[in-house]
């Protein structure tokens, strides 16, 4: 049962999906669960919608985790977020206000095929598991496959590379399904958050160019407030800024696509650490990493309820 679910260990896809069904079954007033499509290998792409059911118009926040299969702390955070949102709804006034005034769309594992592969075969697999017509190599980098400056700087057109952009934009069913959902709900989704690892950074557009976004002041202050809230948990510093200068230039990213699709607050988190464990962040660090990130995401979400 959900009360026995251990949020401080990494879970396989089966365990995560069983947990989603159980969360959906036990919280009928705050949770809805649906599939937005199927992966390349035919697995459902489940999303949890969190928030108090109301007839009135509500803004929404989208959070996806597990775009890159080997970044296991991502799915762990999405599960943690759901747990915190539901468990603290009664006694945390901030969370209650967020859940009453916003909807949260949580996609715990974006790249389901790759995630399974990283559990069963190659722990450091990154891409999807799609087949290529001409090469033996498999997979596309799901964060280079979006229709925004597709396959330009920072992406590779070679199918064997880890940053392969794919045969065409949205070639990956997983990318196409999320893009379709966000296009359909673009009027209500006001924040897009994608959880990655590792580098301890909070990034915002643009990735594909060095220009400054039009609403820079609002996004910059939201990012500063978020990393300050994160720091208040355990004193861990996250760098923040435009992805192109803070990390590196990359084209075809989900964050840039979401921003160009009209979502005013688009972020990518690079969670712990900065390179002691890398992708092998121990389970003992799931709690502090998710606790501090929770504060940052709550801060971003609260900012949506104010005018900038």
């Amino acid at each position: 049962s959900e009360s026995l679910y251990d949020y401080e260990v990494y879970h396989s896809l089966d365990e995560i999906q069983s947990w989603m069904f159980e969360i959906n079954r036990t919280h009928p007033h705050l949770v809805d669960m649906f599939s937005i499509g199927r992966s390349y290998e035919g697995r459902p792409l489940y999303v949890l919608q969190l928030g108090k059911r109301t007839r009135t118009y509500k803004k929404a926040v989208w959070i996806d985790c597990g775009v890159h299969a080997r970044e296991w702390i991502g799915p762990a955070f999405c599960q943690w977020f759901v747990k915190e949102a539901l468990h603290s709804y009664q006694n945390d006034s901030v969370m209650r206000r967020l859940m009453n005034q916003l909807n949260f769309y949580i996609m715990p594992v974006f790249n389901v095929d790759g995630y399974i592969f990283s559990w069963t075969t190659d722990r450091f697999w990154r891409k999807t598991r799609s087949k290529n017509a001409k090469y033996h190599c498999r997979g596309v980098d799901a964060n280079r496959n979006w229709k925004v400056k597709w396959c330009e700087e920072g992406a590779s057109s070679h199918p064997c590379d880890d940053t392969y952009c794919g045969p065409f934009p949205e070639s990956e069913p997983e990318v196409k399904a999320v893009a379709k959902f966000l296009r359909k709900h673009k009027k209500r989704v006001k924040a897009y958050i994608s959880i990655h690892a590792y580098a301890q950074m909070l990034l915002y557009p643009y990735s594909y160019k060095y220009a400054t976004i039009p609403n820079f002041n609002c996004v910059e202050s939201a990012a500063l407030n978020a990393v300050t809230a994160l720091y208040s948990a355990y004193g861990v510093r996250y760098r923040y800024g435009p992805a192109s200068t803070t990390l590196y230039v990359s084209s075809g990213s989900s964050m840039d696509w979401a921003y160009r699709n009209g979502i005013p607050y688009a972020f990518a988190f690079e969670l712990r650490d900065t390179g002691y464990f890398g992708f092998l962040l121990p389970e003992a660090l799931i709690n502090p990493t998710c606790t501090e990130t929770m504060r940052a995401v709550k801060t971003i979400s609260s900012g949506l309820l104010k005018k900038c």
Partner: protein
Amino acid sequence: YLYNNRYAGDQVFRITPSNEGEVQELKKLLGNIKVDLWQPNSASLIRNNATVDVHVRRNNTRGIRARLQKEHIDFKVFISNLQKEIEKQTGYRSSRKRR
């Protein structure tokens, strides 16, 4: 063992090129052998004074180490046995579960 012990002896190097010449040398070196780049995601993104984390298969660790030392490129080993770290990350629990 998890993953059939395929990562036994593999290592993760943290390399920091300190000038453009070292960047080019590193790109060449990493381009000639199959490595798994952790940071940045591709060799084309390697730049001056930015750390490069790379997963090196056990058969290649000695060769890479020798080349980096020969080129005087600063590096350290941040994971000395990948299989052990993988086992640490979740191994005990799943082996307990298997038992």
